[in-house]
């Protein structure tokens, strides 16, 4: 009945690789390498992150085939589940079209990076070479017993033999987290302004305008958020466009906005003023985005 398990154990003790393991390796190994290459070569940052996820999942699966189930699932939960999710979160905040700057900020960075990279490669290759020739194969793991590769055995090692390095890395992580919080909140203690203070500031001219922003589409023919509000003179109220929608669609609709606001070349029935006057209307094209941004922050 337990012949299957026994066979697996004897095979592992003999240091041979079973067929199932070989098949799994030859699927997962190339997938992991492809993921690593894809991560470097992908143009889009989110695609890059996804390739890395593929590598991590393949590694987790390889751990599972090595009967290190705890390690495998911890890899999935911690690396793919938490860390890569954080990466994705930041990448999405950065926006889908943002690309890396190729300008070198640090002097000689590329040279140093190249040298260190080659050094690392040499190190890895020599280690790999040694592991292929003279390394004792570890005893097979039995994840069902606490002494084997299960959570119990790992816990005993971490909190026994390797307690000091473990505590050290924990301290490092906490210092990093506290440092990040300190840096991000270093702007002094900001108390929230009361409504009265805000009103006074508005009328002292510390804001761009005393009134709130015009609602999207309020004076326009549609009530969609993407439709700009029109000012009484028929021109577009630039602040009425949502910042997000502005960045996504304002470029595409530039001509339409021009047309509606009367800044386009043709005469427009909506405009109560001549096109020439419209071009000089307050909040010209160049400063639109900037003004909308600053208003958005304050609102």
């Amino acid at each position, binding site marked *: 009945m337990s012949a299957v398990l026994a066979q697996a154990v004897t095979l592992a003790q003999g240091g041979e690789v079973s067929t199932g393991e070989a098949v799994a390796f030859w699927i997962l190994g190339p997938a992991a390498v492809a993921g690593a290459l894809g991560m470097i070569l992908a143009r889009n940052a989110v695609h890059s992150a*996804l390739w890395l996820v593929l590598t991590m999942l393949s590694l987790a699966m390889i751990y599972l085939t090595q009967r290190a189930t705890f390690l495998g699932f911890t890899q999935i939960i911690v690396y793919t589940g938490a860390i890569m999710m954080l990466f*994705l979160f930041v990448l*999405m905040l950065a926006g889908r079209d943002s690309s890396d700057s190729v300008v070198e900020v640090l002097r000689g960075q590329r040279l140093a990076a190249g040298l260190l990279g080659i050094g690392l490669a040499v190190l890895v290759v020599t280690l790999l070479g040694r592991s292929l020739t003279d390394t004792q194969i570890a005893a097979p793991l039995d994840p069902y017993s606490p002494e084997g590769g299960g959570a119990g055995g790992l816990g005993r090692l971490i909190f026994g033999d390797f307690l000091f390095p473990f505590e050290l890395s924990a301290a490092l992580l906490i210092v990093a987290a506290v440092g990040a919080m300190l840096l991000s909140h270093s702007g002094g203690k900001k108390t929230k302004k009361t409504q009265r203070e805000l009103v006074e500031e508005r009328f002292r001219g510390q804001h761009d305008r005393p009134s709130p922003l015009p609602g999207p589409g309020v004076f326009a023919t549609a009530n969609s958020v993407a439709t700009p509000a029109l000012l009484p003179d028929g021109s577009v109220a630039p602040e009425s466009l949502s910042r997000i929608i502005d960045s996504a669609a304002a470029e595409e609709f530039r001509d339409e906005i021009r047309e509606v606001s009367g800044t386009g070349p043709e005469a427009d029935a909506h405009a109560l003023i001549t096109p020439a006057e419209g071009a000089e209307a307050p909040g010209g094209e160049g400063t639109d985005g900037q003004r909308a941004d600053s208003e958005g922050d304050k609102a």
Partner: protein
Amino acid sequence: MNRMNMLLAQEQTRAEVLADDPLWLVLLKAVVLFAFGVVMTLFMINWERKVVGRMQHRPGPNRNGPGGWLQSLADGLKLAFKEEVIPTSADRKVYWMAPVISTIPAFTAFSVIPWGPEVSIFGERTYLQLVDLPVGALVVLAAAAIGVYGIVLGGWASGSPYPLLGALRSAAQVISYEIAMGFAIVSVVLYAQSLSTGDIVDAQRNGWFALLLLPSFIIYVVSMVGETNRAPFDLPEAESELVGGFHTEYSSLKFALFFLAEYVNMVVVSAFATTLFLGGYMAPWPLSAIGDGVLNTGWWPLIWFIAKMLLFLFVYIWLRGTLPRLRYDQFMRLGWKVLVPISLGWFVIVAGIRAIRTDGGVSTTQILIVGAVAIVIIVLLSLLIPEKQVAEDANKIPVTGSGYPVPPMDLQVPTKPRRKVSAGKSATRSELTGSTTGKEADDGNV
């Protein structure tokens, strides 16, 4: 021979029995689990609509099928034939992958749920469970962690602002609530001394962990609602704020897959909560005493398991019918400032108790006595603390319940000064200047 088989069976662990399942049995179990997930989704949608309808004094769906129970089946079929609209700004590959990523892990998590004890299927002895991994509890967590990628990527790949906001919310939500959830599970694991779901159920033979680890249970239930993006924590969808959140731009079968994943996830976490805290497939107390535990053998436990699972699913519907959606900052505050610290503190207590019990050779009675003595000492010490002298504020005005100052007992109502004889003249004057000024003039007189 048969007896010998039985004797052998006694020695075999759950994992060994399951590892010996023939291939046809494994396939049968997998297909049944998949069908169960799909049927539960159809059932849940209907049940939810009916229960929420009843809570709002309306009948809910009652047209298609007997009692309206085939409504969601009809909706599902219709959904499959709908036109698929893909936005031009979408990242097509990721857009296509996202619903799949979200659905597959949801079904994967089913595999480690122990539905029942040892039974015989077509003469083959097995457990009602697909696989018993030594780290079964982690499989559910890992599946949840991967499933969220579907939501996040779907929102991002749609290439439009609202889904992106939904995706961002979902990512932050999962990172925040997985921590509290993990701590709740770790407490259970410490008590069961195993990560295997089957062992966790066996460890609850003498008492459900819901009673033994009540704080963990509460934290798990709260965070499981957060993890599955259900009301009142359905911020990634938030119909009133984000249209449909991450699935705004999805239509047809891809949308149906997201829907399926959401409901299967609900079933999975409910089943997992049953396993961890409500004794899994064990019969509840008065039933477990019948006939020397006969209701804990054979196929009976499947009934208890599904009943307990439906209890959690009903709570989901109940929450949706009663609670408004939390604001995002409230939600984050609840996660990071309430659930995480409480679960950390509770975990330290649990770990301490476990350490004392395993190493110190201390019995439960001794722990209870020491605990009682400690509580008595704390209460006695609290009596020694001098009562805080509240400085009387001389200018403090007592306030009534509605916020108005309480009139003092010796209130002297000032007498109104006598009106002058010329009052008539001033009245005519106020009439001339307009009625509104009359009051002001009066005030000035007083």
